[in-house]
Each structure stands twice: as C-alpha cells, then as structure tokens.
C-alpha cells in the first residue's frame, strides 16, 4: 500500500497536518499540526470546549476530520473502514466515562476484542487479560461485572482492556474527570507506570501534577488551535502566550 509510506520517519507515531473539523457551522479544529514521536508522552490541556477531546478522538476516527491529514503509525486515516479498524486495533483509548460493557464480566471485557479481532485463542486472551489486570492491580475482580466496581477500579479495567490489544499508542480522554477525588490517584499511578515503560501516550487531562511528572511535552489548545507546545517545566514556569498564562492562572491556584 503506497499510501502508507507517507510518514516522514518510523519514529513518528502520530502525525497531524493542518487538521480541520466543523460541527455543523462551528469550526472546532482550526488547522492543528501535531507530531507525536514514538515513546513520547504528550499532555493536551485547554479550557472546556477548546476542542482537545475532539482532537484525540480524530486520531482513532471516533470523529471525522474534514480537512488535513492524520497518520497513525504511518497509516493515513481515510474512509476505508478496514484501515480505520486496523488503526483502532493499534490505538488504545480510555474514556472519561470508562465505557466498559456492563453485560460482560471484567475478564470478558478484556478478552472480547483480542478474541474477535486479533483472533487469539480464548486461553491466550485470558492469560493476557489476567496479566494486564494484575498490572493495574485488580486481578481479584476479574469475574465481577463492571458496575459492581468503584469508579477508580472501572477506569483501571478500562486501561487494562485497552492494553490487551497490545496497542502502539494510548489515548486518554480526561480519564480522571468523572472520578471521586479519592480515586484519582490510583488511576494516575497506573498511567504513570505505563508512561515510565515507554508507552506512546496522548492524554487530555487537567491533572497538572501528572503533566509535570511524566509529560515530555505539554500542548495548550484553545478555540480549536494549538497555541503553545513546550516541555513541562518551561510550559508551567514561562508560558509564552497570553491565553496560556490566563488558563494556568485559573487552574493552578
């Protein structure tokens, strides 16, 4: 497939070039350019309604961009459904509201897609699921249903479920925003340990402590455009753009 070979370098996991998106007449993304290197951790922050969720949802085609190009692991996102599914298999996503399947047990949640899309034998899929459930430290909940778990546990299951597909990239869409305060830490700890193992990650989050600890770069997005991308220490200490300063002054008290 010649269309795949557009990526500049194998070290680039995600390439976004002049990405535009409209909801009806509303211009949500106004020409976003962003490169994510393999193994890089990027935190995307910005005010609500700025388009940060839309941005990462474009990466796995939960939203369709209308102009520009997005390459994920060297594959360009097109309307080709097979290619979209291939990109999604390599791109794990963790949602604000977990989106676990309530009619399946925790274990079944984790083995479902490996069995049906990766065609793993059931035993192997279960072994893999148990490995990742241990990684997120809830193997003992494997046979419960998601709604019997706490929010923090559910989100850790969601992380394990995404990891079971052995993704090359993980997308986190405000993973701690729907959690009770005392459960935020357990989820962040899981994400930190994942980051330290070299997983390529894009995290939309308001957890600035997390950004400081693990991010290679922090991107600030407002009104559909990326205003500033910088290393975390520079980003937090010497923000350049006026709106970045205003935003940081509002969330860091």
């Amino acid at each position, binding site marked *: 497939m010649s269309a795949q070979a557009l990526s500049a370098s194998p070290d680039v996991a995600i390439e976004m070039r002049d990405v535009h998106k409209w909801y009806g007449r509303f211009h949500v993304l106004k020409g976003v350019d962003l490169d994510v290197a393999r193994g890089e951790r990027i935190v995307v922050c910005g005010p609500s309604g700025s388009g940060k969720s839309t941005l990462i949802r474009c990466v796995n*085609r939960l939203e369709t961009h209308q102009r520009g190009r997005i390459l994920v692991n060297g594959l360009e996102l097109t309307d080709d459904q097979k290619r979209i*599914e*291939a990109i999604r298999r390599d791109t794990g996503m963790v949602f604000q509201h977990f989106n676990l399947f309530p*009619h399946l047990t925790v274990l079944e949640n984790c083995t*479902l897609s490996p069995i049906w*899309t990766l065609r793993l034998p059931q035993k192997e899929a279960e072994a893999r699921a148990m490995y990742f459930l241990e990684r997120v430290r809830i193997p003992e909940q494997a046979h419960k249903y998601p709604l019997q778990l706490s929010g923090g546990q559910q989100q850790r299951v969601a992380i394990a479920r995404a990891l079971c*597909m052995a993704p090359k990239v993980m997308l986190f869409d405000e993973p701690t925003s729907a959690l009770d305060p005392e459960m935020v830490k357990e989820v962040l700890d899981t994400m930190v340990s994942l980051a330290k193992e070299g997983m390529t990650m894009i995290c939309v989050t308001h957890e600035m402590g997390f950004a400081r600890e693990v991010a290679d770069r922090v991107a600030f997005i407002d009104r559909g455009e990326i205003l500033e991308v910088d290393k975390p220490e520079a980003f937090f200490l010497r923000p350049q753009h006026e709106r970045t300063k205003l935003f940081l002054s509002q969330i860091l008290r």
Partner: protein
Amino acid sequence: MSEPHAAALSARNAEPARPPHVFVRAGGAPDLPPPGLVGGPLAWAQANLFGSALSAALTLASLAFLAWALPDLVRWLLLDAVWSAPDGEACRRPGAGACWAYIGAKLEFFAYGSYPREMTWRVDLTLALGAALAVWLLWPGARRKGLGLALFFGAYPLLALYLLHGLGDYARALLGGIAALTGSATLRDVARNALPLVPTNLWGGIFVSLLVATVGIVVSLPLGVLLALGRRSKAPVARFLCVMLIEIVRGVPLITVLFMANTMLPLFVPAEWSPDRLMRPLIGVALFASVYMAEVVRGGLQAVPKGQYEGAMALGLSWTNMMRLIVLPQALTIVIPGVVNSFIALFKDTTLVAIVGIFDFLRAVDTQRLDPAWAGPTISATGYVFAAAFYFVFCFGMSRYSLMMERRLARGRRH
C-alpha cells in the same frame, strides 16, 4: 471609626460563646435494626388492605364482588359441570353447568382439525420436537445453545414441513427422476416410502394456531432486528426501504395484510408457483409481527448509550461484531418486556387467520358448537371458556418466563 462600630468589632473579636468546634467520636455507632419490623398477617393486612378509608372501602368492595361472583362461577365450572357423557343429552338437562364432556369428545378435532386421524402422530412428533428444542433454547444455563439455535432455525423448519405436509406427487416424481438419473437406490426408496401428502386444507385446530404463532415468533425476531438495524443504518437506500416497509405494514390492519397476502400474492407470481393457501397468511402474519418487532428493537438500540458504541469501536471491533457482541445483547435485554408483549399480541392475533379461511383453534371451537349431537344451551359457553383458557395459559406462561429472564439478566449487572 465611630464608637458603636468599634464596640461591635471588639465584640466580634472577643471569644464567642459557640459550642466547641472540635469533635472526635469515640467508638463506632452501633448498627440498629430498622423500625417497623413487626410481622404477621394482621400487621400486613392493616398496612396493605386497610391502610386508609379509601383502601378499606376498596378492599370491602372487592371482597363483596368476589362473594357475589365466585360461588356461581365455581358451581358452573366445576360443581354442576358434566364431566363425561356419550352425547349432549346430559348437558341439555336444566341447571347443568359447563359441558366438559363435549370438550373431551371434540378434543381431537380441536387439536388437529381435519388432519387424517391415522396420521396425527406426525403432528404430535413435530410438536414434541419443537417443544424439546424450545425448552433447550429457553432453559437458563442449558449447554450448546449454538447447536440448538442451528437446529431450531435450520433443520427443524424443514423437518416440520416434511412431517406435517409430506411429499406430494410432484416432489415424489422429482425425487424418483433424480434417483433414476443417478441410479441411487436410497433416493428411490426415499421417494417410494416418503410420508404421504396431507394438503393444508385438512390442517386445523390447535396445531395450526401454534404453527402460525411459532412461525410469526421465529421469523419476527431476527427479521425485526434486521429491519431495526436497517432503519438506523447510514446507507440511505437501505434505510429508506426499511422505513417504507415498516410504516406501510404497520399502518395497515392485520386483517388487511391477510386479505392482501391472500388475494394479491397470487397476482404477482405465476399460478404454478402461487404460494399455498396456508403459506400466504403465514407470510402476512410474519411480516406484520416483524415490523412491530423492528420498532420495539429500535427502542432498545436507542437506549444503549453512545459510549458503548465508542468503546467497541475504539477496540477495533468491526460493525458486525460491535452489534452482535455489544449493542444487541444490551438492547434486547432492555426490550424483553416489549418483545414478549409483541409475542403475546401475536399469539392472540393468530385467531385472525380464520378470516382468510384458515381453520385455526378458535375457528374449530366455533364450528363444532353447531354439531346437532351436542347442541345445547351451555355448549357455546363451554367451548369459548376452553378457548380462553388455552390462550391464557400460553400468554401467561410467556409473561412469567419473561419476568424470570428479566430478573436473571439483571442479576450481577447492577449495583
């Protein structure tokens, strides 16, 4: 600053006379039993039957109604009923109740219509096989349901068709021809010894009612799911066709659909391919039930949160797998009450096929009450009570089964 203000300030700064604002509980609060746990039938009656003046009045009125109606009903149905008699003589005696002897004498006819008596084992076998498969599929926790489904939807309809209908002269000649061409002895034996044809105009009674209902139920669930998916599809042509079919069939009374199936289907196909006279209403009933089912299922599909679709898509599941594994199981669980409601309505609507000349159970009951050997004042009532009881038993059974499944499916999946 003036004097009063200064005084107020100093008053505020002075140590206020508040209760101590530091509190540390020593020991835990004990678990107490909830109040009002006094049991017993008297307490229950007081709470539920005579809780208020209105409640008490309704309770008394209900009791009075039962006292007025029940004794006569019991007397007519049981005490004064005629349980066995060779003909209608005993039932014509003044004061006689329900004539159950008449039901007993006519039971074969009610069950099989005019199906040749020496061949009713074919009907019995078909029904028994169907019941066994149904129990296999409906029994919670039964094993190998995939095989059961394949048998029920694949092999069973063909087997049932063969058992009930047998092979006609054409089919027999065709088989014989193939046997002659291929020289296959087994095929020739099959053609020679196949079950003889029983034309559908001899079919009737309970088994026809069950046949119409089963075909309706078995076709309407999968077809309804397909129509519902089509109606929500992004492909405009598929969506348009599904919406048209649903709205047209749903916007027409079942009787009209049956008349149309009866008179219009033969117009569109050559005479020799014209569907059998029983097949036409079967198609009509199945289609009618399917469009209602489609709307019930659509409600369930819309009740599944968007996040479930997104969670499935983000895992790289194909559309088919997403629907089959994630969306439909949840959607169908939500709509169990609606689905069973449709099945119950369908089961009773099967009585309408009588209008296009199908001899269903209710029609069998209706014609036999005119039999001069049994004619009498209680015969009609007895027949209709029997028919009502038959329909009630099936519908109530479906209702109870669905309640049990709802509870089973809800278990473990909620907090």
